[in-house]
């Protein structure tokens, strides 16, 4: 299976070329994808931690999230 391609536009000449990625470039894209996945996992974990904190506060107050929503509506 051939590697994906990239589009290169030379701004001096205006010539556009479609070039098959090298194996190294494919590996770099995969690495970037790993980093992106790690970042998303970190963001998801931060969001989950914030939600836990909110629930802990509600528990201290003795209120359910529905009751808080009713108070704020």
């Amino acid at each position, binding site marked *: 299976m051939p590697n994906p391609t*990239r*589009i290169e536009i*030379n701004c*001096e000449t205006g010539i*556009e070329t479609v070039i098959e990625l090298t194996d190294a470039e494919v590996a770099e894209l995969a690495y970037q994808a790993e980093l*992106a*996945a790690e970042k998303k996992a970190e963001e998801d974990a931060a969001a989950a931690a914030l939600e836990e904190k909110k629930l802990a506060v509600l528990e201290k107050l003795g209120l359910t999230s529905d009751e808080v929503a009713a108070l704020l509506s």
Partner: protein
Amino acid sequence: MANTFILIASSTVGAGGAASIDFTSIPSTYTDLVILYSGRSTSNAGQTWAPIRATFNGSSSTWSNRAIYGDGSSASSGNSSSLSEFGQASSSLSTSSTFSNGSIYIPNYAGSTNKSSSTDAVSENNGTSALASLTADLWSTTSAITSISLQIPSAYGLFAQYSTAYLYGVKNA
């Protein structure tokens, strides 16, 4: 639009998609650069948008960013000390034939200081999940920018057909 806003080059992705859109041999005769893009990815990683990364002069190092997001259900912020982030494309999970749009501003690209940029982007989706983002990137390198590559990380596939990117030069901004 200022009359010094000049189209340098543009590209539309053809059938089969493209992993990246690369502008090379960018002339140093402008003050700033602007890239306007419309993007969709051919795959997804479980979300309706796909991040767009960039390299300047082929470099994927010395990048950092700060961003704020709204995704249809909540607002959030994020940062990275290693990644570039230049907005997002609508992913294959978004309504078919929808595309994101983004605007990248790169001031003083030919100067000899570190290169900052800002991106304002929003994905499109006929649903409750879509992403709006404002991002500030820093490429901590003092070289003049002579090439820019916009990339879709491979987990999200490729730039889909009909994605576009337009590179403008701004003089005396």
